[in-house]
């Protein structure tokens, strides 16, 4: 199941290589920057230090626009959601070592050697989650050992869909955070709902208001060979203008809309258009994994005052462990946990930890009994974590034990994920959850924010 042929290093190098631009011809009388021979990227990077004068009056407004929007953003709360894709095995994340049935059901996969979980010592952290255990010791983690919903669906896609839209409704098209942003967001700020990793995360799908999706904050430029200077400015304005074309045709309107959002986002991210990389006060896990790099960029964007509000991204690794579960989980969890730990320490070092909560979730847990391939099949209740300095730490909903599995041999949920969403909307955003979560009044809200 491994054998990832793609060489991320090579790919990253290639993506950078795209910025290796041909230089414009130099003629006397040309304005800077075109005549300096600087690439656009390095120019913009230097412009951060060199103030704005050299950029020319025409572009000044664009640049100032990005800064002004950032500065005008309230220093409000930010929610980050991290998705463990594939159905992470809750019985490994928080191993029920105190349950006599555990070794029976998991003869080859029972996890051993982890730190006991303080609130329920019958559970033990997966050894790879030691960084979370440490944050938990500081009271910065809320632990959901069995979260899910009634009548669990064992399809990846259906169950993930339920979590993304915040309802057990297969037809709902907007995400739970998307609906919140539609009600509470702004029409001119795509960064309010930010997907990291290059694809829109469904939880952020809105009906009306713009949201954004990027790989990283310093990679969002629009360059064309043989175009520079004033004409480049006109071209980028033209991108904006194409985005403002109205149409009754849904696909055309979508294409126009995304064009406009991209033009707006480009302006917002101008302060990050740099090749220098991002400097952080703490060390993130190294290597070619994109997850720590995304969190690192995220912390820097928040620190720079960009108007972020809801952020969604996928964790490191792949959690659909039908086979070879032990090794796959060990590496995926250690990269994920070490990155989350660095992110928390980064936020603390930058003095912005009070503004950020991070919810770690998966579409379901896995079958209590292991299969014959050294793995586990799809199950029901899963584990989730809420991390942050403002978290009301401790256990939310108890672990129901392995002697009371459901008819399919799966762990039953003791917390409904929609109750978690309602609690976050109300306690973190101060927003009426019933405007976002269907039947919102019927779910119990745990206390999540201290």
């Amino acid at each position, binding site marked *: 199941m491994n054998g990832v042929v793609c060489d991320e290093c090579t790919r990253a190098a290639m993506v950078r290589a795209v910025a290796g631009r041909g230089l414009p011809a130099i003629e006397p009388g040309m304005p800077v920057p075109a005549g300096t021979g600087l690439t656009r990227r390095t120019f913009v990077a230097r412009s951060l230090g060199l103030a704005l004068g050299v950029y020319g009056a025409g572009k000044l407004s664009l640049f100032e626009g990005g800064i002004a929007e950032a500065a005008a953003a309230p220093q409000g709360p930010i929610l980050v959601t991290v998705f463990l894709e594939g159905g992470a095995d809750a019985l490994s994340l928080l191993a029920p070592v105190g349950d006599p049935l555990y070794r029976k059901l998991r003869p080859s996969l029972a996890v051993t050697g982890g730190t006991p979980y303080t609130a329920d010592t019958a559970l033990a952290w997966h050894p790879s989650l030691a960084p979370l255990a440490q944050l938990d010791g500081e009271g910065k983690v809320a632990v959901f050992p069995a979260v899910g919903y009634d009548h669990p669906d064992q399809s*990846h*896609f259906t169950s993930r869909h339920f979590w993304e839209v915040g309802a057990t409704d297969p037809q709902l098209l907007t995400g739970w955070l998307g609906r919140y942003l539609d009600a509470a967001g702004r029409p001119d700020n795509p960064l309010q709902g930010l997907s990291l990793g*290059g694809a*829109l995360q469904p939880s952020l799908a809105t009906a009306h208001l713009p949201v954004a999706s990027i790989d990283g904050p310093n990679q969002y430029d629009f360059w064309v060979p043989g175009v520079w200077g004033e004409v480049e400015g006109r071209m980028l304005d*033209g991108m904006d203008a194409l985005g403002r*074309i109205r149409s009754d045709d849904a696909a055309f309107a979508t294409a126009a809309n995304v064009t406009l959002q991209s033009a707006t986002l480009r302006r917002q991210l101008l302060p990050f258009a740099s090749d220098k990389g991002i400097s952080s006060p703490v060390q993130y896990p190294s290597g070619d994994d994109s997850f720590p790099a995304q969190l690192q960029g995220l912390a820097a964007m928040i620190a720079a005052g960009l108007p972020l509000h809801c952020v969604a991204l996928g964790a490191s690794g792949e959690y659909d462990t039908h086979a070879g579960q032990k090794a796959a989980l060990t590496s995926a969890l250690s990269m994920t946990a070490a990155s989350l730990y660095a992110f928390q320490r980064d936020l603390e070092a930058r003095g912005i930890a009070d503004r950020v909560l991070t919810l770690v979730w998966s579409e379901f847990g896995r079958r209590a009994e292991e299969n014959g391939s050294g793995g586990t099949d799809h199950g029901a209740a899963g584990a989730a974590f809420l991390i942050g300095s403002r978290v009301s730490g401790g256990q939310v909903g108890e672990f129901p034990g392995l002697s009371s599995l459901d008819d399919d041999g799966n762990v039953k949920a003791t917390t409904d994920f929609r109750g978690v969403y309602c609690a976050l909307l109300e306690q973190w955003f101060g927003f009426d959850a019933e405007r976002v979560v269907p039947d919102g009044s019927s779910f119990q809200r745990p206390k999540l924010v201290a």
Partner: protein
Amino acid sequence: MYRGRFGLPQAERLLWRAGFGPREGEAQALAKLGLDGAVRSLVDPGPEKLVGPRPHDDKGRRLAPADAWGEDHCWWLDRMVRTSRPLVERMTLVWHDWFATSNEGVGSQRLMLRQNQLFRSHALGSFSQLLLDVTHDPAMLIWLNGNENDKDAPNENYAREMMELFTLGADRGAYTEHDVREQARSLTGWRNRWSSGRGDYYFHFDRRRHDTGVKRVFGKSGRFDWRDACRLCVGHPLHPSFFVTKLWSYFVPVPPDRATLLGLEEIYRRGRQVKPVVQAILGHPAIYDGPRMVKPPVVFTAGLLRRIGAGITTTDWAWIGSLCGQQLFYPPNVAGWDDTRWLDTATFRGRWIAVERLLRGHQHDPGKPPKGFPRTADGVFARSMAFWNAPQLSAETKATLRHVARLAIADAGNEDWKTRQYPVLLGNALRELIAVSPDVQTS
């Protein structure tokens, strides 16, 4: 059946939905055939000819699709660009999405290409046969753990997805969790060998690992094996409606009305054949009168290359495909790509870069304006349109681009170097804007 006018716009749209857009003169030729003839020429294209410059990497070497990272993507993209059988290639892409297998889990470009050839050979054939062959296709056996599904410890992965995603659909009452488990038992017995030199090889059915007991599936009992598992799915009363609805969604962005759905099911039930269903869909008014669709990224990219008669001259297309949200042989998961969400701010930038990469080497040097290069806004706009072989743009889009052109020409004022260089810079810029316009992103 569509009865309206079948002219150039209709022929162009058909070529986008059933293939990768027109090459120069292709839409005109297709329009002359009339709707019937045009559709027939697509579903019965005759033997494949590859037309246009042969593909190579950045150093002029032949592609190594089985070995080098990303060259599998470029190899297939080339086939989309050069094929004389666009619908066969488009259906191959449909099956790649339908039975979405990712090399992320398979780890062998060789096996992925073998599966790709399977999809191509069944492109417009029998779905029953396709399902049987996919079920023991080596890449699929690895991807959904069919090769680890043992009678003593069944692995449900393939059993579930074959019903949920390949034949019946979730949440339609077609099957229960119990059926998933029983189908997994029917599918037991496939395995393969592995060596460090050869990787995964010798995929075969091992009777000793097969569960020969009685299974109960969809209310029927028997000593079912993998063939029965496929047969039961394809024979399920809820399969035809799932099949035609899913197939329809690749060609038309809104669901079929009830009469259309029943008609297509009727055609499909006659022999579980793909071709007559596709033929009926391509002749349906919804293709010609219905709303536009966002082009999938590889269709968009292959279409631009076809439009200007260019070939594959770089392997950059692989990572650019990934930036656009579609790297071939790497669908995001077993459900395939989400055709309703191709466009967001990240993938829009990916498409911008695809156009930019294509333009490299074609752009005029502003320092050396070509002889007779126009200096008026309208002249420059017309020249950039001609570069792309005059794609169809809406009046609003044309007006927007002409406005950009007028502003840039006005910027030049009377400064000598500007009046010489700005028209060329503008021509280069307009090429990009035309290709990323909402009109060209959709069809």
